[in-house]
């Protein structure tokens, strides 16, 4: 895509794009740090995630202001319009990812106080976290690379996260039934798993928005959606 006749227009769009990339990198780092902190019971790391969330919020506010100003000043059209509106929406999903990572970090203390170490309780949370982290990093990378096809695959891959979540759910349920003293820790871990699953959903939203920004067309509504925990609860109640 060529440059605008007005070069400051390009600079403004570039700045918004840079903020999205920054927020993307930060959301990846926060997701990784919060899950590491959880699995290692690392309170200091958890505190860092909590303070990083303030940076994330500030970046989102800056992006919103810049995007609104750009719309007012330039009245962008076609792919410029899509990229500005898309940026606002992606930033809001990235900010939510930051919130969810912060929420995981806040539970680190609560889980650690109990007897059993989280790692022994949550083998599959580890695997799930790895998968979600990969999704977060990949969506940012494919957005930067402007790779629309990869975004479709990425969106479909959210199913794997859902499957992992179901397996974590079952695993934690088993621990709670085995020993009621695990219930507090496991409930916190269950919230953490749910947060990871929600992060996966935000990645899906970002992939859809990024796809629209790049191509101008929306991805079809349907996508594989599997939440067997819902069925498990139904079956057992």
């Amino acid at each position, binding site marked *: *895509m*060529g*440059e*605008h*006749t*007005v070069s400051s*227009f390009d600079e403004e769009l570039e700045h918004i794009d840079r903020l999205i990339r920054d927020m993307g990198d930060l959301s990846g780092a926060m997701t990784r740090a919060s899950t590491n902190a959880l699995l290692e019971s690392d309170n200091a790391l958890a505190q860092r995630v909590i303070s990083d969330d303030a940076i994330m919020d500030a970046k989102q506010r800056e992006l919103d202001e810049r995007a609104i100003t750009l719309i007012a000043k*330039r*009245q*962008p*059209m*076609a*792919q*410029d*319009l*899509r990229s500005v509106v898309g940026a606002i929406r992606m930033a809001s999903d990235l900010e939510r990812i930051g919130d969810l990572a912060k929420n995981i970090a806040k539970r680190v203390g609560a889980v650690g106080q109990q007897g059993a170490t989280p790692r022994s309780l949550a083998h599959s949370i580890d695997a799930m976290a790895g998968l979600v982290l990969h999704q977060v990093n990949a969506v940012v990378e494919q957005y930067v690379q402007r790779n629309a096809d990869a975004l479709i695959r990425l969106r479909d891959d959210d199913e794997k996260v859902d499957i992992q979540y179901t397996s974590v759910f079952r695993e934690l349920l088993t621990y709670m039934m085995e020993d009621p003293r695990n219930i507090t820790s496991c409930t916190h871990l269950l919230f953490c798993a749910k947060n990871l699953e929600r992060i996966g959903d935000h990645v899906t939203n970002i992939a859809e928005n990024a796809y629209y920004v790049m191509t*101008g*067309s929306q991805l*079809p*509504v*349907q996508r594989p959606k599997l939440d067997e925990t819902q069925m498990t609860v139904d079956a057992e109640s």
Partner: protein
Amino acid sequence: MNMLTDAAVEETLQSGSKPAASKMAGKDVTVHYGEKQALFGVNLEVPERQVMALIGPSGCGKSTFLRCLNRMNDTIDICRVGGSILLDGEDIYDPRIDVVELRARVGMVFQKPNPFPKSIYENVAYGPRIHGLASKKSEFDEVVETSLQKAGLFNEVKDRLQEPGTGLSGGQQQRLCIARAIAVSPEVILMDEPCSALDPIATAKVEELIDELRENYTIVIVTHSMQQAARVSQRTAMFHLGNLVEEGPTDKMFTNPDDKRTQDYITGRFG
């Protein structure tokens, strides 16, 4: 549960963007000004009772095409028009066509308001008079009032109909010119940058008017303002270097155009 299939969604989307019946059509239209060719085989259909916007950088041929639609180019000696322009399926360049009658059916509003140096009343009554559409005073009164009403100007000028039209503000003058065009009951109204000499409020009034006129008239508007084209039109045609680059539903043209030149032009990357 909402189980809309892709095919159903696709169908809904397409029926929404289907062009209405064509009121005017250009078939392989070429225009030469002396040796210089200004239009290169343009094929474009103007749907009935819709607003079609013609956009493109200066010198792209959009005004030239517009002026073909009511043979305004006849007034330029060195201008030659090829191909055919159809109005309700009839070629308007047929020698049997009465040009004066044609221009009553296909009216025009220009960039700069150009009221006659006559009273407001006479500006509107002039067309019906020369076309013999009214004869009695009461008939003229009625056509003047309804035309000014339709142009959204009546309430502002009803107490000074005998004052000169040139004494009105720019925006009022432009709406007077629109009233003058409407007075002869045209089927199509051509507008060549009707708002470029107006302030934003007068522009908004004219745009509001265009939206109302769409119920009864087919409108073709040339504009340099992308936002205006996006606001007032249902379909947009993009011209570049005498060629029609792309034509389609306005919503699509301004969010996701197919052609790179359209993309570049509307996003401000050249032009």
